[in-house]
């Protein structure tokens, strides 16, 4: 494959970042917006070309005997520290990276377009587009990374772009603290990631994904029997690498930054904190999947973290008032769903029935990543329209909006149906595959995640009814809400259409863990159960929230503690506050500070004090009488001469 297109895919966004970032101050808004949109549009067209070439051209470098191959378009040495420690930058094409190219450029393009309408009157419009381009560049670089170190570099770059965009409204203290929180929490997680990378590459002598994943048994053998604190080094490495994924993908207990990240502009939430960056953790596990399969303990860890997070986030989402927070927790829950799906896709599970291909969960997880990116971006962009219309993030300021904002209403409804898993919308197909994979692993996983899926349907329709039904807010009389301009409506409509049809993509033909095609067929029992659960949950939400009534208030009054706990996200922020402020700052740091002040500083102060005392004692000799100095000097010289003379004879 020619390397021009892949290079351009990366070069266009970074060039846009530089052009808009440096020239933005002298550029009219319209020029900056059009440049950004055109740049991303071109990039999207190129990415589609590359992905379609990869999937459909049938060239021997991409597919051999029906098995899709990993193909490095280029891989250049960037830093060579020693013979072994070489950092390369390259472009890896394989099923998941080609799929991610499509997801990222599509969502990014729509977000660019949408932002033109949404951010129209905001100061710093050009800066905003520059940051969006930087993010797109970093995310594209992350998914096409040929080696884990390149991934780490771009991993940090997306972290930085996320930080810049969350703190875009830098005059709001809440936005500033949210951006700092996001950066510090993910950075803390990335510390684990880096240690994991170093551990792994120390034992395997390579960063390259192809080498690591094509022969994971060898990787295991290289690590040998080295153990640390009761677990093998490989386990530690994989768990630590996953820790980076936990930070970016907001898994418990490192999820605390994502709800606060909603302080950023809503299109940014759609792009970064729903569709692309937060799935980087899932992508990482998928990328290293063969290695994870070699270490069952680390896969168990992924699964348990995912299952707990999915349930926790779903419960919290039921009790949030801010619509973006509901969507944020929904994102956390869905990403955790993907994690569990990956975790149950292990090779070593005994293959039972004819359709139980190993790695089903892998395919399902990637499928859900794809469909989730589309419908969650749709939901966030819809939420952006609502916020644009009523100037508030809380559903208490909304209600009865279906008559005022028909486009938003219908697209939002499609998004809700998709995430709830109602056929024929896309979420149904991907979620069904995931649940099938979980039931295949064990009934417990399946039942647990079915419950989460039910909760998902419930809180999404709670949100939907509270926004669009319930009762009309009296404020509409003074300020009539309406749909956004075409730049905002068009992405909604297209993403809604995608969410309607994406489920029919024969995804298994394109993306599987080993490159062999997999024919998706619906498992009737799982599909019917999950649809039934979703319908019951939707019915419950309809009964509770469609018309204004006092049932929700009564429920809340019946369980005030639980409601308050869920509303306050089970006090995770308070726990973190307690740990950081009371324990780390209060006890550990203060004792260290005491040691610093009273031992280290005191020693230095002691030197200074002795010197000062001494100088005070003898400073009377410098009395300002020039002739006294000369006398001292003269007699000193004579004494010195005498000493020298005595030494000589």
């Amino acid at each position, binding site marked *: 494959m020619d390397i021009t297109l892949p290079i351009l895919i990366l070069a266009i966004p970074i060039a846009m970042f530089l052009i808009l970032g440096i020239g933005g101050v002298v550029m009219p808004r319209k020029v900056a917006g059009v440049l950004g949109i055109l740049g991303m549009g071109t990039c999207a067209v190129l990415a589609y070309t590359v992905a379609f070439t990869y999937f459909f051209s049938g060239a021997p470098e991409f597919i051999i005997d029906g098995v899709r191959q990993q193909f490095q378009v280029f891989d250049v040495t960037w830093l060579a520290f020693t013979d072994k420690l070489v950092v390369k930058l390259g472009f890896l094409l394989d099923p998941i990276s080609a799929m991610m190219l499509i997801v990222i450029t599509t969502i990014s393009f729509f977000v660019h377009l949408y932002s033109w309408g949404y951010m129209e009157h905001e100061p710093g419009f050009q800066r905003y587009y520059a940051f969006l381009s930087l993010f797109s560049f970093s995310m594209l670089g992350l998914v096409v990374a040929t080696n884990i170190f390149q991934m780490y570099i771009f991993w940090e770059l997306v972290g930085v772009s996320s930080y810049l965009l969350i703190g875009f409204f830098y005059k709001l203290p809440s936005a500033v603290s949210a951006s700092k929180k996001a950066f510090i929490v993910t950075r803390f997680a990335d510390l684990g990631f880096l240690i994991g990378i170093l551990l792994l590459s120390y034992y395997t002598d390579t960063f390259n994904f192809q080498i690591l994943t094509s022969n994971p048994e060898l990787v295991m053998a290289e690590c040998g029997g080295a153990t640390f604190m009761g677990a093998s080094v490989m386990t530690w490495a994989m768990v630590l690498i996953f820790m980076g994924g936990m930070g970016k993908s907001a898994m418990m207990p490192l999820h605390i930054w994502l709800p606060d990240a909603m302080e950023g502009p809503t299109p940014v939430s759609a792009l970064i904190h729903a569709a692309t960056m937060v799935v980087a953790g899932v992508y990482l596990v998928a990328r290293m999947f063969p290695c994870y399969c070699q270490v069952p303990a680390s896969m168990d860890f992924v699964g348990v973290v995912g299952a707990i997070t999915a349930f926790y986030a779903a419960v919290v989402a039921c009790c949030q008032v801010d619509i973006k927070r509901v969507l944020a927790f929904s994102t956390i829950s869905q990403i955790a769903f993907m994690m569990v799906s990956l975790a149950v896709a292990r090779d070593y599970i005994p293959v039972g029935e004819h359709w139980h291909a190993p790695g089903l969960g892998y395919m399902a997880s990637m499928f859900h990543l794809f469909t989730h990116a589309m419908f969650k971006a749709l939901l966030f962009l819809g939420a952006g329209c609502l916020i644009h219309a009523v100037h508030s993030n809380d559903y208490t300021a909304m209600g009865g909006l279906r008559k005022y904002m028909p486009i938003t209403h219908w697209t939002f409804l499609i998004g809700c149906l998709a995430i709830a898993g109602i056929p024929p919308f896309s979420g149904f197909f991907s979620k069904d595959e995931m649940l099938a994979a979980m039931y295949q692993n064990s009934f417990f996983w399946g039942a647990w995640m079915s419950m989460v899926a039910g909760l998902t349907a419930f809180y999404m329709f709670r949100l939907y009814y509270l926004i669009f039904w319930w009762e009309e807010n009296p404020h509409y009389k003074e300020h009539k809400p309406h749909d956004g301009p075409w730049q905002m409506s068009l992405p909604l409509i297209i993403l809604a259409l995608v969410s309607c049809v994406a489920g029919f993509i024969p995804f298994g033909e394109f993306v599987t863990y080993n490159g062999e095609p997999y024919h998706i067929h619906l498992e009737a029992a799982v599909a019917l159960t999950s649809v039934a659960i979703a319908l019951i949950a939707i019915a419950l939400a309809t009964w509770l929230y469609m018309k204004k009534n006092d049932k929700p208030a009564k429920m809340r009054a019946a369980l005030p503690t639980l409601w308050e706990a869920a509303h306050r996200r089970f006090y995770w922020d308070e726990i973190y506050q307690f740990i950081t402020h009371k324990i780390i700052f209060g006890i550990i740091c203060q004792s260290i500070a005491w040691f610093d002040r009273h031992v280290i500083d005191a020693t230095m102060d002691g030197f200074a004090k002795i010197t000062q005392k001494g100088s005070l004692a003898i*400073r009377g000799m*410098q*009395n*300002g*009488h*020039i*002739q006294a100095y*000369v*006398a001292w000097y*003269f007699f000193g010289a004579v004494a010195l001469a005498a000493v020298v003379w005595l030494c000589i004879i």
Partner: protein
Amino acid sequence: MDISILWYLVPSVILFICGVYGFLTRKNMIAMLISLELMLNSADLNFVIFNRYLFPGSMEGMMFTLFAIAIAAAETAIAIALIINIYRAIGNTNVTDIKEMKF
């Protein structure tokens, strides 16, 4: 009669001691400056003497003396300028009256 190096060095030392004595005892800064010049002349003299007796064939010591005299003239000019400014500031040139520059 053979004139040894001592015949030259002794006057030089006497000149130097006079300078030191004057510098330490006189209160007038002009007088101190003159004493300083005496010491300098003594050093110049030593240059010439040692050149003449130790390296009779060469002229470096003489040349250094010429340089030193020129530099001494420049230095004296600066010293005089300082003394005039001090005189303008405090009304006399008594060295015991300028003892502010300490600590």
